[in-house]
């Protein structure tokens, strides 16, 4: 039997999340190394059947879909029961999750039910010489990268943050959709109770950083809030998104989704321009895949210059307003 790579296709707002497509794309890269592994997906939700076709467009040849009204909203217990039931039945070799706010909890719950190992928040996935999954995980704020292996149990599980891989469509292929009835995994002995009530959306102000080709990032040396507002306007005039590091987020000037780093988002824009960014490893870890990196910092010895293509040793106040004015002209 040929090996199988599974991807859990996360549904948000009725459609498959981008990260799931990123994982399918990565799975297509890993499959040949495993000797032509099959790529399959799991899909839970309500009225989501049309999404199976979308998964096929990214390389899934089989989709296990549970389509039921009680699965409409994510809930960790029934979801984990369903996925662990499916995995125990079909025995994938590798099972990948998006390290999203729901996947980061669902994945490990499934792993615990299957008594298998899961590598969290990976920055890359490889197949090693033993044909095993080697998941690359940053620790100590990205200062150290370690391989996590799961050699003796199956499936080998991993979660990957959105934005680490790039999604690209596959040549159209055939997809088999296997519908699974919810009765199959019902909780025989439920304890406590937990009901999802609602999903409340806070649409982000301005362009989300994950989608931006240009990111202008403010770091601890940015100065006051007026400079943050200038960063936002500069990003807008470049058709990009404003982002920040932890100290700026702590000032409360913007929402959490704008923070780049190990505890925030990983980004890979074509262009990154940092102002007053010091280069703490947990930030660098989330931006070093950017195409071109420019940084402005008044400290000539700042670590951020070591990971920059262009370094500008200057006061933020001397450059930021002038650059903005120059772009407005």
């Amino acid at each position, binding site marked *: 039997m040929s090996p199988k790579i599974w991807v859990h296709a996360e549904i948000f707002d009725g459609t498959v999340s981008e990260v799931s497509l990123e994982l399918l794309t990565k799975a297509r890269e890993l499959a040949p190394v495993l000797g032509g592994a099959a790529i399959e997906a799991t899909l839970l939700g309500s009225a989501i059947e049309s999404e199976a076709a979308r998964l096929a467009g990214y390389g899934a040849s089989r989709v296990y879909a549970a389509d039921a009204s009680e699965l409409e909203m994510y809930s960790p217990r029934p979801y984990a029961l369903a996925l662990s039931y499916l995995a125990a039945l079909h025995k994938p070799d590798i099972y990948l999750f998006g390290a999203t706010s729901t996947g980061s909890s669902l994945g490990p719950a499934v792993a*615990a039910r299957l008594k298998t*190992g899961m590598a969290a928040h990976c920055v890359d996935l490889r197949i090693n010489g033993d044909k095993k999954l080697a998941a690359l995980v940053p620790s100590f704020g990205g200062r150290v990268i370690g391989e996590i292996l799961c050699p003796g149990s199956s499936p080998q599980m991993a979660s990957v943050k959105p934005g680490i891989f790039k999604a690209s469509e596959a040549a159209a292929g055939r997809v088999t959709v296997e519908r699974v009835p919810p009765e199959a995994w019902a909780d025989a002995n439920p304890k406590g109770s937990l009901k999802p009530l609602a999903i409340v959306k806070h649409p982000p102000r301005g362009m989300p950083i994950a989608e931006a080709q240009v990111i202008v990032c403010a770091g601890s040396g940015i100065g006051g809030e007026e400079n943050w507002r200038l960063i936002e306007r500069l990003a807008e005039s470049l058709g990009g998104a404003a982002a920040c590091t932890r100290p700026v987020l702590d000032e409360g000037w913007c929402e959490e989704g704008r923070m780049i780093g190990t505890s925030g988002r990983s980004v890979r824009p074509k262009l990154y321009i940092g102002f007053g960014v010091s280069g703490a490893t947990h930030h660098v870890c989330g931006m070093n895949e950017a195409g071109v990196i420019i940084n402005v910092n008044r400290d000539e010895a700042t670590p951020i210059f070591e990971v920059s293509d*262009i370094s500008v040793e200057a006061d933020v106040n001397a450059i930021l307003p002038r650059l903005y004015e120059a772009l407005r002209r």
Partner: protein
Amino acid sequence: MAYRVAVCVKPVPDPNYYGHVGIDPVKKTITRAGVPNIFNPADKNALEAALRLREPGSGYAAAISMSPPEGAEILREALAMGADEAYLLCDRAFAGADTLATSYALCQGLRKIESEKGLPFDFIFCGAESADGATAQVSSQLGEWFGYPQLWNVFSLEERGGVFMLKTKLENGCMEWEAKPPMVLGVARELNKPRFISAMGVVKSRKKPLVTWGRSDLPGADDGYLGLAGSPTKAGDIFTPDIRREGRRLSGSPDEIVAGMLSVIRASGAAAGV
């Protein structure tokens, strides 16, 4: 309502000292000499949540940690903050645990407390993630070992007549939940502001028990799930990534610098219409 609450806590290396972390090039192990431990920040929020649930009634709050002996220090802090009892799971047999083996050992320890007290916990709190590993998996896996509903990244928790209204973080929003105990919750830093340890708390903690349990104190546990042997994940190669770039310097007057930056921005082709 007098709830019985458990909190899982953990010592982590102080992030202010990450600059001291390196790799031993020969042994391929992480060197962290001179890096002190701190109370994992999110675990303090977890403890605060536990103390608030316990306080209105009589209740009971136990702190538990699976860690080397130095973990006792943060358990003493937990007692000074207000926990009633503290338990340290400390044995070579527990060492080298990944999240699955860690959550199993914690489950076994908590089950033992429950059986000694003759009452189950209503809530089990963890920090949503730890500052060092940040795998953020323990609370979700603990929920499965208990077979309880679990939620992760909880940033709001309110009681309405025995029913709990919770909110968890989503990428661009949040999810609202209604729950009844028992449950396992991984709490986000935004849930609350942990109280400071007071001198009165320190003095009161003198009389509170800090119990250390080893492998032999958990006779019911299965060695197949404990420590290194019970950890399906193994550490492979480790390395420090080389992400250095050329770092060409732009110099001159501010206007000259801005002109230089503009040409780099244009050359990148990233910004339309510039």
